[in-house]
């Protein structure tokens, strides 16, 4: 009986944990509850992935009302794949959070920090699992509101301004999304995504459809931090507590990519009205610009966290590049990169959290001589950096390989050159770290010798190991991505 209820339990468990934590009011108990909830939702996500692998699509009617009338949870290959990533990152960051958050968030607010983390996790899982357009907006709001608070709990006063700017941009993005859904509802009469995709080709009036597509795309790319709309991301990631940055970098933007994929292929792919509208070319151009400029800006950043934030914007450019190619290899590359980048960036930010805890800041002047002071942490960062560049044997390489394959398949050579070329820029900013950590003598600001606490190192190294493991044995991530890509393209 429980197996049938999994989709609902996946989101409800963290959602229920939050109010219980607020009632608990003690940080230790709150952390234990958060840990239990995130691990159980990770277990449910894995069980769901197996269910979907067997059954193809898992559909679950909320409140036993049949889909077009009630709200439906619809998890397919793509959904299950992203769910495992999000729940996995949630489960990995939760133990890390105990020491790292205790150092960065004032004591009285710690239990609320955990409650917000639970709500953010529930929101993100809810977005991926739902099959209803408006329900997606509601969970998008839950995830975003809790993210604003998580960012604002950072120690630095600038985190408040970063949170405020993100709130303004995020709310505009969410409202744009609602306008898009409104227009779609007016044309098709339904809110259920699958039902909408079925009824869309029948609609003759194309103008509002194109406008709806434009609104949804702009709204989602605001949350995605696609190139022209990414201004909130560097500040938000830099000034947020390190555990939050790690969790957000690995999941928040990836969930928005999932929504973009869902809308682009499931809903808009079906109707012929979008053949002539140059969405693909626009996305292609935007992602190309994103990759180049964001990587260049990343090289000149004084603060390592801000550098990685800009590199995140560039990496998201890779993912959207894969989507814009709209062929099997490109799409698989995009989905695989979604997974690989999540692990890599998560590992890097977790390790940086350890440095920030011991040295107070993560800027380059205090990274000098890190190689000797914190050998394990800096070595982990180097491996993460290699995976960012895409050196063979690491996860990054796999996704870049598929992206290049997709570019060749489309016959656009400059795309393949772009992907490889920008990896060189990535080498530049990873080298900056290697040079600071290993070649320079420890400066005045660098931390006293002594490793980061074990509670921080274990989860970080778990992710670094995952980077390498998924680089070598690609059965899980490429397999999952290929089936998801096939499913989406099949829908066209």
């Amino acid at each position, binding site marked *: 009986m429980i197996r049938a209820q999994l989709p609902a339990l996946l989101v409800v468990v963290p*959602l229920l944990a*939050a*109010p219980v934590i*607020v009632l608990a009011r003690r940080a230790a108990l709150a952390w234990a509850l958060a840990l239990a909830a995130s691990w159980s939702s990770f277990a449910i996500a894995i069980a769901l992935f197996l269910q979907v692998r067997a059954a193809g699509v898992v559909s679950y009617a*909320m*409140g036993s*009302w049949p889909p*077009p*009338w*009630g*709200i439906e949870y619809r998890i397919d290959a793509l959904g299950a794949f992203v769910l495992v990533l999000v729940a996995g990152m949630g489960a990995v960051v939760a133990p890390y959070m105990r020491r790292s958050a205790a150092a960065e968030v*004032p004591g*009285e*607010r710690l239990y*609320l*920090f955990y*409650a*917000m983390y639970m*709500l953010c996790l*529930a929101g993100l899982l*809810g977005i991926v699992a739902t099959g209803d357009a*408006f*329900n997606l907006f*509601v*969970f998008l*709001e*839950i995830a975003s*509101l*809790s993210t*604003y*608070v998580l960012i*604002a*709990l950072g*120690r630095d006063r600038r985190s408040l301004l970063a949170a405020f700017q993100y709130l303004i941009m995020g709310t505009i993005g969410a409202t744009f999304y609602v306008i898009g859904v409104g*227009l779609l*509802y*007016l*044309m*098709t*009469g*339904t*809110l259920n995504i699958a039902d909408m995709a079925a*009824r869309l080709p029948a*609609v003759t*009036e*194309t*103008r*509002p459809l*194109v*406008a*709806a597509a*434009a*609104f949804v795309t702009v709204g989602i790319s605001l949350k995605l931090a696609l190139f022209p709309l990414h201004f909130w991301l560097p500040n938000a990631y830099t000034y947020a507590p390190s555990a939050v940055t790690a969790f957000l970098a690995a999941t928040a933007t990836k969930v928005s990519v999932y929504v973009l994929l869902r809308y682009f292929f499931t809903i808009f792919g079906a109707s012929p009205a979008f053949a002539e509208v140059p969405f693909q070319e626009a996305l292609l151009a935007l992602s190309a610009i994103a990759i180049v400029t964001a990587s260049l800006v990343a090289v000149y950043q004084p603060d390592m966290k801000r550098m990685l934030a800009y590199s995140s914007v560039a990496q998201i450019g890779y993912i959207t590049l894969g989507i814009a190619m709209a062929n099997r290899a490109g799409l698989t590359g995009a989905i695989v990169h979604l997974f690989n980048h999540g692990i890599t960036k998560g590992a890097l930010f977790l390790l940086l959290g350890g440095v920030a805890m011991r040295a107070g800041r993560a800027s380059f002047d205090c990274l000098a001589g890190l190689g000797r002071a914190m050998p394990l942490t800096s070595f982990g960062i180097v491996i993460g950096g290699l995976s960012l560049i895409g050196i063979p044997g690491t996860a990054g390489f796999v996704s870049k390989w598929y992206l290049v394959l997709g570019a060749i398949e489309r016959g656009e050579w400059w795309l393949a050159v772009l992907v490889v070329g920008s990896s060189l820029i990535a080498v530049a900013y990873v080298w900056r770290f290697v040079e600071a950590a290993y070649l320079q003598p420890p400066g005045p600001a660098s931390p006293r010798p002594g490793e980061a606490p074990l509670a921080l190192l274990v989860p970080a190294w778990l992710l670094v190991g995952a980077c390498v493991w998924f680089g070598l044995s690609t059965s899980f991530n490429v397999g999952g991505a290929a089936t998801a890509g096939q499913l989406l393209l099949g829908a066209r």
Partner: protein
Amino acid sequence: MMAVVTVGIIVQRNLFSVVVLAGVYSFLMATVLVGLDAVDVAMTEASVGAGISTVLLLAALALVGGEEARPLIRPWLPLVLALVVVGALVYGTLGLPAFSDPSAPIHTHVVPRYLNEGLKETGVPNIVTAVLASYRGYDTLGETAVVFTAGAGVIALLRRVRRKD
């Protein structure tokens, strides 16, 4: 009418009057909603939109001070942006069904079931409450979670920390 109020809000410098105008704006919106047969929504907009948000704004103003600095020196950039969005919007709405023709898809597809069987299935004459609580009850759960998040968030942000942070 509401356009006048909105322009007033844009031009007005003294924050206190802007808040009052925002309250007026919400009440006007509530009356428009009653005109559109959206009785539940009008009531909510009046009580929540005008009531609570005005109270919150006033409370915040008491802490933050009611004067606004000189307006931005280069207003043309946002104006351009606004005009571009107008173009996109008007383009989008051209193809939409007219104001209230019953043949529009939203009346024909999902809704008839709510209206016809709503009373039988849920025993609740007010279809809006029936849909809100039962058919799409999960949305409302999410909505309550949003309110909860805002509440917990405000507590987290504003709770006095003993040592000055």
